[in-house]
């Protein structure tokens, strides 16, 4: 019985990690059709923002939950103004530009802080499930994923700003003819997606370690999750991270972490062969 709980917790925290690290990418891709290849570096910047402000003496929770999203959201706002805005509707150019941005960010951070792994211990202890011990931080991560996902969903579903965002996503031309400035909606969306990525980077920092290249470990998985999810950005990301996170974690348990990821990729490939439009191309089509 204990092992069921222990594995269950592990699976849930695997799913939560995938969900958290994919949401920022999903928002930017789902709303703006912009593929942000610097997504992994936004995670990395969030982790650095958290660790540096914590080292400077700030309360660690404030560093992770407030400073990281604010800093990366601000960086996102500047990047949207300088780069993304000039490339709307040019998907390939955007990918190239954000890839360059990704390399530049890795280079800049390496130059300033060095290519060393900075430790950042999980700020909660561990607890026992029968004969197993589990990290309390895993529970916190699951709760954070639920709150973050629920918060974004409620914001889009129930607030006027969310209504403007959803309408603009469906028909930007008509939205502007009714008086909405699409430029502004896109700027806010990109900043919000960046902030979510920054928060995600801070949240995963305690178990991933903080290095300039840490984004590379997450970006592929985030992409696969968003693409497997399909058109409905929230329902898609949620269902895809649920499925792929479970496969990867169980695969890891049964064999090795490497093989767990291989299994996840195989499932994603098979799924996309069967459902080329992603999960939400077939199911939950009317959801967000």
């Amino acid at each position, binding site marked *: 019985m204990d092992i069921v709980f222990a594995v269950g917790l592990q699976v849930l925290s695997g799913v939560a990690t995938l969900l958290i690290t994919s949401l920022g990418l999903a928002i930017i891709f789902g709303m703006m059709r912009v593929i942000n290849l610097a997504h992994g570096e936004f995670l990395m910047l969030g982790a650095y923002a958290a660790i540096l402000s914590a080292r400077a003496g700030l309360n660690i929770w404030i560093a992770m939950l407030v400073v990281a999203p604010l800093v990366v959201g601000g960086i996102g706002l500047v990047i949207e103004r300088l780069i993304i805005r000039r490339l709307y509707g040019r998907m390939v150019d955007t990918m190239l530009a954000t890839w360059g941005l990704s390399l530049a960010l890795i280079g800049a951070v390496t130059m300033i802080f060095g290519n060393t792994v900075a430790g950042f211990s999980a700020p909660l202890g561990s607890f026992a499930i029968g004969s197993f011990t589990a990290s309390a931080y895993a529970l916190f991560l699951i709760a954070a994923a639920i709150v973050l996902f629920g918060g974004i969903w409620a914001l889009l579903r129930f607030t*006027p700003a969310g*209504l403007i965002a959803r*309408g603009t996503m469906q028909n930007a031309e*008509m939205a502007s*003819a009714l*008086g909405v*400035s699409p430029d502004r909606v896109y700027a806010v969306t990109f900043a919000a997606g960046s902030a979510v990525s920054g928060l995600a980077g801070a949240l995963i920092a305690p178990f991933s370690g903080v290095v300039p290249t840490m984004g590379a470990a997450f970006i592929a998985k985030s992409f696969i999750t968003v693409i497997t999810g399909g058109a409905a950005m929230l329902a898609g990301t949620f269902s895809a991270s649920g499925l792929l996170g479970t496969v990867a974690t169980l695969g890891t348990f049964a064999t090795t972490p490497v093989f767990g990821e291989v299994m996840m990729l195989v499932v994603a490939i098979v799924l996309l062969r069967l459902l080329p439009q992603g999960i939400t191309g077939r199911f939950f089509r*009317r959801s967000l």
Partner: protein
Amino acid sequence: MSDTAMMEVAELVSGYGRIGVLRGASFAVVRGECLGILGHNGMGKTTLLRTIMGLLACQSGRIRFEGRAIERLATHQRARLGLGYVPQGRQIFPALTVRENLLFGGIAKSGGAKSGADDILARILGDFPELKRLLDRPGGALSGGEQQLLALARALCGKPRLLLLDEPTEGIQPSIIAAMSERLHDLRARYGLSILLVEQNLDFIRGLANRALLIHRGQIGREIPPAALADPTLVEEFIAAV
């Protein structure tokens, strides 16, 4: 340029790529009137309204709205000045409910501030009682006639002073066309609206417009005499004479 003109369009040129559609269109809308622009397909009716709204760049020419040059403004700025747009094909947000479509029209200009949006919704539902039972349906699930009403109601939620209507009768049953004409008459009086209507349905223009102009190959022709407007054969002769 006269004092009574609400909107003046002068020598407007626009189109898609190198293909010119509007070739120097000029006309004025008088405050309070409904001006009909009649023309066959491909004569530039939709291009004219899209250029006035700023959805299509104007290559040359001028557009003045209430004394202000607007031809270089962004679309949303023109909407905020008081232009309302009911496009061809209705362009309802398909995954938003009818209520959300209407609310969108009410809050779009304030950038999402919700002040007074519920009052606007209540008032517009008084004008469009048939939308009440549809409020929670997705806009994409409505019939063509219902979508047309919704598009009109959504535009009115933004309190425009000049309404641009692009072929409101397209794809609508004849019985609903008559009802819509009556509805527009009524709304015009109550909201103090000016209307610019482009149509190829002669009956609809005759029923609603104070005056009618002809659009032909991207230029605005003479005013169609009211006597001619009453008689389809005379209109055909008039068009042939242009």
